[in-house]
């Protein structure tokens, strides 16, 4: 369960936005635009993907590996509050002013993602409101689920 980091990432065909579960079923033009703005990135175990307070420049689609979302306090400098894995997305700070990351993200294993240019994609969504709405309808349940998870965590269920 506390598995040590795995070996190198598999050598596979280039990652495609259309293959990621988040984009499946969305408008093909939206997918094409996202693909145009995406570039593949790889992170080694322990490598920081984003840092709290830095500009939120990308929307990350995770394909391989595992990412720890961390918050910091004086007592706990690196508290992981969630992990994100293949098929999941990382972050919406690129969509919300002032476009700064609100947490740290660190690779727990060798991790492979597509990073979509946040500013350009935001502009593309604004320029095509119907696609933008479709995108937000896809993203909103993820935000709502994480909010609900946070509410349950606040109840400190295991401490009752």
């Amino acid at each position, binding site marked *: *369960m*506390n*598995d*040590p*980091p795995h070996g190198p990432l598999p050598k596979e065909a280039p990652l495609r936005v259309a293959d990621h579960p988040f984009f499946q079923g969305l408008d093909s033009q939206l997918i094409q635009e996202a693909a145009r703005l995406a570039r593949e990135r790889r992170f080694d175990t322990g490598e920081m993907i984003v840092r709290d307070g830095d500009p939120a420049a990308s929307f990350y689609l995770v394909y391989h590996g*595992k990412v*720890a*979302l961390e918050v910091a306090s004086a007592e*706990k400098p*690196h*508290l*992981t*509050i*969630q*992990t994100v*894995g293949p098929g999941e997305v990382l972050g919406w700070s690129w969509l919300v002013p002032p476009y700064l990351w609100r947490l740290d993200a660190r690779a*727990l*294993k060798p991790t492979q993602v597509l990073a979509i240019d946040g500013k350009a994609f935001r502009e593309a969504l604004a320029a095509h409101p119907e696609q933008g709405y479709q995108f937000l309808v896809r993203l909103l349940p993820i935000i709502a*689920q994480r909010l*609900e*998870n946070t509410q*349950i*965590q606040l*109840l*400190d*269920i*295991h*401490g*009752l």
Partner: protein
Amino acid sequence: MASELHPPHPLPAPHPLAPAPYVVRSQTAETGDTTTLVLSPADGGPVHPALPGQFNMVYVFGVGEAAISLSGDPSDATAVVHTVRNAGRITAAIAQTPPGQTVGVRGPYGRGWPVDQATGRDIVLMAGGLGLPPLRPVLYELLSHREQYGRIEVIYGARTPKDLVYYGQIQQWRQRPNLRFQVTVDAADRDWYGDVGLVTARIPDTRFEAGNAIAFLCGPEIMMKYAARDLEARGIPRASIWLSMERNMKCAVGVCGHCQFGPEFVCRDGPVFRYDVIRDWLATREL
């Protein structure tokens, strides 16, 4: 000495509420506040047969007794196993009873998990915190007749990695090819490479044939409420979802009323209930 005026009086049958003496055979610290005790009858006899999901009343003489779930292998006729969290005066006394000392045990009580209904089906076991011990006998039972069941998916969550019980055994279970055992914690430091997030967040990644699956849930009520909702959303019928409830049990035989839950007594009618039977009570505040 008996006389004609006072013939020998037969010994009374043991009172149903009288505890039997059991000797603590071993004591294993699971976490900072949780201990597993192995107990055997002081007279050397066999233990009372128990079903997975039932509980005993464990009595520390001079202190009091508490309801503790059976958490050992149900096929073991020589000992009972209880995993106890130090959550108060009585459970602290139970957890701290050293090997060689005697405690009182009465039981087993209650209705357990309907393992017989799992034959031929996919099975989802979900445990939060100290909800794993009452489900462990189910897992022993399933794995001892592994060929009779479909997929077995276990999701276990705890507050932090330090709060995980049966750590070594879970690592062994995770090596089995015919069992999927997911572990997650609510929060962790950088020494933890496993999953972080609520147990409910693992449900989308859990594999089962919804129309032919059965789910057993045990843990904090709020966790079971959301987990049952999400499993139902994945297609498991309410009548195939079972929950183990916890209330303050005193008599354990449905007389005193301490454990009343809606129209049910948890000690007598439960602790394992079908979701469709208690769903409305779960939604009732301050019940």
